[in-house]
Structure formats: C-alpha cells, structure tokens
C-alpha cells in the first residue's frame, strides 16, 4: 500500500449497531473513494438506513470505525460534529422538507443558518438553486404541502446540494415516484453529483436507479457488505445473494420472514 495515497473520502470498518438486543449492523466494512458514486442495495431491514444515520452521527454506533477524509468521527462532540456535517448533504426518502417554511427558505436553509446569505439574498438566490433541479422560479413561494411528490423530491435535492457539499447521501431517492419521475430524479442526481464533483453514497432497492447513478454497487445483507463491484457487473456477479436480489426472485439464499397462511 502506498503510504502517500490519499485516504478514501469515507471509510467504515467493523461498524456494529443493535437495538433492544437485535443486531442490525454486524461489522460493516465499506469504503467510498473521492468523487466516487457508490450505491448500497439490499432488502428492507438489512441496515441500509442505520448505516447512513451512523455516518451522520444521528445514531451512535456500538463499535467500529467511521472515517471521513481519514479522520475518525464516531466520538465527535456536538460542535465538531456540526462542523463536519457542513461537508454533507442528504436527500431523505420522504423529502423531509420543513413544512412550516416556504420552498425558498427550505432550499437555502443551510446557507441562511451558516450566515453565508442573508434572508433577502437567500430569497433572491433560491430560483437559481431551483433551476438546477428543473423547477420554475414561482415554485419558490409555495409551501411544501402544495407540491407533488416528485416536486418535493426535487426541492429536497436542491436543498441537499445548495451548500455545495463534498459528500451527498441519497436515501431511497426514487421510492414512491412513478418510473418516469424516478428516472428524472436519477438524471438530476447524476448531473448534480458530476457538476459538484461530490462523493455520493446512495441506498436503494430500485435496481434501475442503482444502475443509473452508481459507479460501484455494494450489497448489504444481515448487517454486512457481502458483495461489491462495478455497477455494470452487478448482473453477473456470481454471488447467489446478489443474483436473487437483482432478479427479484422469492426463491434463493435470502429468506424473507413471511408466514404462508394458505394452500
């Protein structure tokens, strides 16, 4: 190993996390290079969202190491964590827009709170931020409740990238959208990440979305990464777990906890 090589942007090693005696992450290892777009696929309840929340410090991992730019982050205090999070942007599964604030204030929230822009400047800057995700300027004055699901996702994407973060997380970006709007969001994610030169980590169980936005795909199963490879090799990974997931088969090594009450 070259000692002068830059550390990966994100490196998780042996991360564990459990809730009420149920172990969700069981020694998860994952590395994301600078400017790389990694998509983690896996079924419901396998620990995808918990992994993201541990990286962001929303959950405290029970064990293991999480490094950002080579710096250990699992024990960061409140103010250090706040500074670290300035590098991050996140698109939440349900958009998580602040429903008491208009769209323009949602989009420029981080810039206002960090003192980068005054409220007046932020209001003026919002249409440009919205244009980056294909939304018209008049949307800026609407409240989140007045938007469709697809528009909410776009506004949430605009909010996630408004402060030009170095690392962006996408939590199930296409869930709940029709296939066309899902593809629009995927295209926007690809173009925004490329434009910013950001590192992206996404979690999804939508294979079309994963193939579109990933440089590399990793599969999580029972709290561990069980396979990782270039996005174009996911179809012939040779891993029976990945094959079953990618092809959406009920039969295979992944057993779903379903009780049959018929037949």
């Amino acid at each position, binding site marked *: 190993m070259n000692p002068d090589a830059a550390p990966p942007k994100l490196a998780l090693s042996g991360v564990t996390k459990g809730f009420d005696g149920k172990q969700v992450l069981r020694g998860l290892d994952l590395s994301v290079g600078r400017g790389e777009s990694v998509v983690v696929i896996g079924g419901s309840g396998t620990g995808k969202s918990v992994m993201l*929340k541990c990286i962001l410090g929303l959950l405290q991992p029970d064990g293991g190491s999480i490094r950002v730019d080579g710096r250990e982050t699992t024990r960061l205090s409140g103010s250090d964590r706040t500074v670290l999070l300035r590098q991050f942007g996140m698109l939440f599964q349900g958009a998580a827009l602040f429903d*008491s604030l208009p769209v323009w204030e949602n989009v420029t929230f981080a810039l206002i709170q960090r003192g980068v822009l005054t409220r007046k400047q932020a209001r003026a800057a919002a249409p440009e931020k919205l244009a980056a995700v294909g939304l018209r300027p008049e949307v800026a004055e609407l409240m989140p409740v007045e938007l469709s699901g697809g528009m909410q996702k776009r506004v949430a994407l605009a909010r996630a990238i408004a402060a030009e973060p170095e690392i962006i997380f996408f939590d199930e970006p296409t869930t709940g959208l029709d296939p066309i709007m899902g593809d629009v969001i995927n295209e926007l994610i690809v173009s925004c990440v490329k434009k910013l030169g950001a590192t992206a980590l996404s979690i999804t169980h939508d294979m079309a979305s994963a193939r579109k936005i990933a440089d590399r795909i990793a599969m999580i199963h029972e709290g561990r990464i069980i396979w990782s490879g270039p996005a174009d090799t996911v179809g012939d990974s040779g891993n029976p777990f990945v094959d079953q997931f990618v092809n959406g088969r009920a039969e295979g090594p992944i057993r779903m906890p379903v009780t049959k009450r018929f037949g």
Partner: protein
Amino acid sequence: MGFVTAVGHAFLEFVAAIGRISLFAASALSHCLRPPIHVRQLARQIVEIGYFSLPVVGMTALFTGMVLALQSYTGFARFNAEGAVATVVVLSVTRELGPVLAGLMVAGRIGASMAAEIGTMRVTEQVDALTTLSTNPIKYLVVPRLIAGVAMLPVLVLIADVIGVFGGFVVGVYLLDFNPASYLRATWEFLEPIDVISGLIKAAVFGLLVALMGCYQGYQSRGGAQGVGRATTNAVVSASILILLSNYVMTDLFFS
C-alpha cells in the same frame, strides 16, 4: 412474584423516564444560555403562546372571577361576611386560580401543539434533516419554545388577574348590588405585592414545564401518527400534573 416484577419494572421505567427528562432539560437549558438564539423562531413562539392563547386564558379568568364572586357571596352570607367577597376574589385569582388555570389552559393548547409539531417533524425525519443541515435541533426547536413559555405565561397571568378581578366586580356590582367604589376599595385594601408576584413566578415555572414537556414528548415520539398522538396526550397530562405538583411546593415556599 409476577406482581412484584411488574411493580419493579414500572418503578424502574419511571426512574429512567425522570432521568431522560432531566438530561433533556439540562441540555435545553444550557443551550438557552449560549448564543445564537433563533430570533425568528422565538418571535413566532411568543406570538403563538402569548397572543393566540389570550382569548382562552381571558375567558377562563373572566368566568372564574364571576363564579368566585357568586360562590363566596352565597357561602359567606351564612355568617354575615359578604363584605369579604372582593378580597376573596382578588386573592384567589392572583395567588392561585389565575396562574394555575392559565397554566392548565396553555398546557392543553400550547403543550399539545408543541408535542404534535415536533413529533410530526421527528417521524417525518425533519428533525434529522435539521441536523444534516448543521443546525442543532434543540437550539432551533426547543430553546425558542422554552424562552417564550417562561416569558409569556407571566404576561398572560397578569392579564388574567385583571380580567378575573373584573369578572368578580361585574357580578358583585351588577348582580349582588355591591357599591362599585366599596368593591374596588376592598379589592385594593388587602392586596399585597407578594400576592401578584408569587402568581407571576408560578406562571414562569408553569410556562417552563408546559414547554419542556411539550418539546420532550414531541422529540421522543416514535412510530408515525399513533406515536405523535401518544406524545400529544403525554405532553398535556404530564404538564398538568407537574403544574399542580409544583404549585403546591411553591405555595408552601411562598406562604407557609
């Protein structure tokens, strides 16, 4: 044995809940003392608590003062002490009924609304979104509510005191045929500053308790709409009980 185990579990859960609330309160109060304060959020909460609670607190105080005058008159008539009605009304309103009833009404209106708003933000990941936008949720959501609660409840109670005494005056003069000047003189004669000040101090404590329980229950809510509903109920019930409990303790401290 099963009964003992159940009682033990309930006791341990109670102690753990007190610990969680204490930690939450300590964190929130320490943030109250450190800048920055989100001024727009604070202004919004001051309007929400102080202005929009005024009708319900005013109506409560008015009818309480009227009922007090009526009840004390019919009661005191049995031993020819009708002249004490004005004094009883003003002391009861300023010392006890003004702050306690205002606190309970605000707990029902504001405590529930705080728990529902923060609880909904919690279950829809808006609280997590605040954190990812490098904004401390305690500072942004909880601190303005606590400061507004502590600042506005005394103002509401001061207004409630005036309205309550006015309610007693209206019944005394127009229904019970007291002389207006005599009624007002009796009201002022035995009223001491401590009667009003103790009520205002109680109100500030009640404001803190209402805001704290509303924010805590909302912040801890889990599990969708059902969780938010449970948080709302818990916020009102716990704030109401704490108001009554702390009222006894403070009355004992002030007047015994």
